[in-house]
């Protein structure tokens, strides 16, 4: 028997998400249909969400579907790490180091990347982003910053 794992995960996530909003909206005044409070509309929407979650569950059981896109672990992890590195780098070191670090970490996603190419790309794009965003568009970025 086929088990539709992705379908079950999808309906479960929907259940948690809608249920979470329903519980959270209990903390706010509901009001009446004529004078709706801040919780009224979110509660109705979250309620629909719960119904859809149940229907998704039924569908996953009745019409199990298999296949779908395989998870690309390596690109996924390095792209997320690259964004995190950008956020941390910008907060501590400034724009240029953050851009260079983001390029290097994200280049790890592709197994064909070569170290020298990546280094050149990191330097080149740091300079380009300084020219575009700071010089040309005059956006207020901290270019370099002392961490301590």
């Amino acid at each position, binding site marked *: 028997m086929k088990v539709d794992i*992705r379908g079950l995960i*999808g309906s479960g*996530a*929907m259940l948690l998400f*809608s249920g979470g909003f329903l519980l959270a*909206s209990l903390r*706010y005044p509901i009001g009446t*249909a*004529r*004078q*709706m*409070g*801040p919780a009224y*509309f*979110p509660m109705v*929407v*979250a309620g629909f969400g719960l119904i*859809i*979650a149940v*229907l*998704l569950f*039924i*569908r996953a059981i*009745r*019409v199990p*579907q298999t*296949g*779908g*896109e395989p*998870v*690309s672990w390596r*690109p*996924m992890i390095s*792209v*997320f790490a*690259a*964004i*995190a590195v*950008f*956020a941390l780098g*910008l*907060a501590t070191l400034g*724009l240029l180091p*953050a851009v260079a670090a*983001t*390029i290097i970490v*994200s*280049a790890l*996603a*592709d*197994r*064909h*990347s070569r170290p020298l190419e*990546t280094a050149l*790309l990191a330097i080149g*794009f740091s300079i380009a*982003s300084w020219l575009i965003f700071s010089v040309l*568009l005059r*956006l*207020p970025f901290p270019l370099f910053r002392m961490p301590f």
Partner: protein
Amino acid sequence: MDVFANLLLGFSHAITPGTLWFCFVGVLLGTFIGVLPGIGALAAVSMLLPISFYLEPTSALVMLAGVYYGAEYGGSTASILLNLPGTTSSAVTCLDGHPLARQGRAGVALFVTTIASFIGGTLGIILLVGLAPVLGQVALSFGAAEYFAVMALGLVASAAVSQGSALKGIAMVLVGVLLGLVGTDPEGGMPRFSSGIPEIYDGFSLVAIAMGLFGVSEVIASIGRPADMLIRDRITLRSMLPTRDDARRAGLPILRGTGIGAFFGLLPGTGQTIAAYISYAVEKRLSRTPERFGKGAIEGVASPEASNNAAVQTAFIPTLTIGLPGSASMALMLGAMMIHGITPGPRLMTDYPQVFWGLVASFWIGNLMLLILNIPLIGLWVRLLRTPYRFLYPAILCLICIGVYSVGNSVFDVGLVLLFGALGYGMRLLGFEPAPLLIGFVLGPMMEENLRRAMQIARGDVLRLAERPITATILAITFALLVWSVWSALRNTKAGQEQNSAQA
């Protein structure tokens, strides 16, 4: 005649050096992004949204709109040369465009798609000029109940036609609406669902959501995908010229494609992708030699490209005149307008005629620029496609991060991109479409506001909401569509299986 006075006003605002420049920047960047496989118009518009905050509203909108329809032109280039769609709506162009390239006729395919795009776009704009004032008049009589009904219809329609199952589409709309409600309640001023985090008292950043859902997850999915570049030689102007036979074959399909595209662009929920698929199917059905399709039939590239460009232009009609975005990209445009303090709707045309008609005039100027960008300068884009993706995506990722940060100088928003990127990639793996989510996110708060106002007027009686025949009709259609799509999602197991294998 009013139309001519309006157009004159529009062109007088569009043909200023500043506006022309931003129109050019928009269509250039749009073509660039469209040519690159993996990132589409949505990611492109959201990447430029932050920069547009520093411009005055008309220039900003002209540029963003240019990115949007420019991507539609560029999208077919990658479809033909790489067999990888540059944008989702040009996926169908692969079917006959790539075989044409294999036969050494890539130049002809590129030329015909550009001409078809231009004709489709131009006729779409003419329709926009004619229909917008009419629809604007109708929308002027809309009250809160009508707005609520129209928005509900838009949301249900976008869910019903989303690729994959309609149930999943509805789920995404609801998730989007709930995410849109996070932040301060517009009526009481009470912060909702913000768990005490001050950064989201104003709600989630639209840019962060759009970039995470569309940009980041598309980049992840495109890394390491093999490309099959066919063209070794330069594409000369001579090789682009179609034969007399090609021109004869492409003529009528372009017009039919335009008609189909213009219709689907107008409808809420459907958009250029569906329009392109349907016009391909129609051409194949009408053809006396359907066996040529899939093996390099020129009709198979001409009709869908005319169709998606016509749809792109007519999609602006409901967005600008009612304030109802039919697609995720239009929802993003609507969000951009509101950030600039312009509320799309029937008042836009009367209160800011120079913005409205200037924007419409810039569309046509932009289409003219695209004609030049895509025929004499095609070699530039071919060279861009030869650049390995591993050089491009780190830069795209950096631009996403810098863009999001620059909206509010907030590192928190970069973190949100990470969060929504994870959500977007997870959704992709589970077969959920991000487009209905974004539409729900933009429309959700507006729907709540209109429902509250309408219910006050109706004194809390749901049935009195549907007192006016127009509201009752729209709500009835919405309800029927909802029931039908849920029913068919649960019943029609066979279609479900097919959709599943089509997605895989």
